[in-house]
């Protein structure tokens, strides 16, 4: 590799990192927030066996899980204008990525809800709790703890999949890199560079996941609190 390549590599770092911080990360945060809300609703209507809504959830998951994310992005961004619906590319990316991931996360959460022994729900009723109270205080906290590692997985996966938004002109990290490549003709170092920045972001998320899991381990939290109380 020659000096030009390394020079481009060094000079482009800021140019790639900035859209990472200003677009990739906010895009991921927004899409994942949407994803969690929708996934929770989809999982709960199935867990509670709500008629009609439950069938809707199955249909939703069938559609979003059964077609490629990139196709969904194209339909919304390039297809919908044909019928007069024009959506800003960032909004389209947030909506499509969030709704797509919701289909997967809904299944994760549903499985976690169903893993809480039904006997605890019965015990809840017998101690005078209402269905809502049982869900909020007993079932959901246990389910979210179970679902946490898998949901973290989805979050990391989503962070990388925001690069698909480059295909609908969102100026995120990959799109920016492509522009620099077009100008400098150094695809190898530049694509490796953007890959390394994605890796750095994922590493931070992995570290956060580890911290989150330790916090969710209730025993540790409680013991620490007790020790403080004793001191």
């Amino acid at each position: 590799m020659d000096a030009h390549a390394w020079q481009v590599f060094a000079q482009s770092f800021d140019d790639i990192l900035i859209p990472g911080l200003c677009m990739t990360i906010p895009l991921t945060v927004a899409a994942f927030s949407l994803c969690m809300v929708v996934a929770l609703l989809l999982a709960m209507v199935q867990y509670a066996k709500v008629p009609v809504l439950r069938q809707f959830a199955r249909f939703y998951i069938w559609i979003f899980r059964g077609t490629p994310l990139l196709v969904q992005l194209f339909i919304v961004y390039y297809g919908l204008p044909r019928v007069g619906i024009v959506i800003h590319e960032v909004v389209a990316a947030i909506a499509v990525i969030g709704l797509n991931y919701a289909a997967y996360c809904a299944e994760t959460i549903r499985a976690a809800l169903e893993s809480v022994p039904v006997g605890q729900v019965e015990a809840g009723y017998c101690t005078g709790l209402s269905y809502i109270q049982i869900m909020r205080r007993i079932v959901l906290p246990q389910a979210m703890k179970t679902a946490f590692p898998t949901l973290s997985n989805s979050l990391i996966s989503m962070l990388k999949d925001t690069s698909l938004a480059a295909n609908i002109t969102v100026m995120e990290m990959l799109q920016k890199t492509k522009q620099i490549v077009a100008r400098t003709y150094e695809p190898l170092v530049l694509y490796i560079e953007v890959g390394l920045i994605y890796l750095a972001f994922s590493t931070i998320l992995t570290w956060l996941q580890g911290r989150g899991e330790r916090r969710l381990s209730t025993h540790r939290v409680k013991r620490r609190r007790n020790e403080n109380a004793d001191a």
Partner: protein
Amino acid sequence: MPMLEVKGITKGFGTLDVLRGVDLTVERGDVVAILGPSGSGKTTLLRCINFLETADAGTLVFDGESFELGHVSKRDIARLRKKTAFVFQNYNLFSNKTALENVTEGLILGHKMPKTQARDVGRRALDRVGLSDRYDYYPDQLSGGQQQRVAIARAIAPEPEIIYFDEPTSALDPELTVEVLAVMRRLAEDGMTMLVVTHEMGFARTVSNRVIFMEDGVVAESGPSKEFFENPKEERTKAFLRSIGTTMAGESGKKENQAKE
């Protein structure tokens, strides 16, 4: 007036008739043992009485108030459940809550008790079952016997009018069975009304004052415990008592007494 009266309760699962018209009466202060071979419908009966299963037909009279089983509103079910408590075979403690929180959760949310008062009541309930040193332990840090005693504390804390026990010692090792039975014996001595599905003949014989013997979804024989064990009338009852053996009953009774001493 009996506190609890059940008349003609029936329940089927698909083509299987589990309960085929069961009558039952519990007076205040009674400790009634429901005995019978596996599959005779004992547990289903208890679950129907507390609406964990919906009975197909029958009448339930609680404190003089009559309910048509199968047509009881959610509101009435919730109201009735606040006067009763249920102890499960598998304890069913809330695994994300400490022992104390398991007891206080229902007091605070279900019975609308202020938190500080609930914690006092909860600690006293755990003291009564001998778990004063385990308030802040999570269920998976407790032995089976301790978990079941937390479940009993959770049951007694709201001062229910009756506690239903569904085979409370079936999941326990013999030595842990003893500690749970000792707690139940003390509750009985304190005058708690209890309806207990059990396989512990020693308990049925020495603690309960009445026995209901079920077979194939009907009550085959019922009466005072002493009479039931010493002078059973029905041939089926005699066969059952023979099959479990009097030695077993004698032994578990003895073990319990030892534990008490």
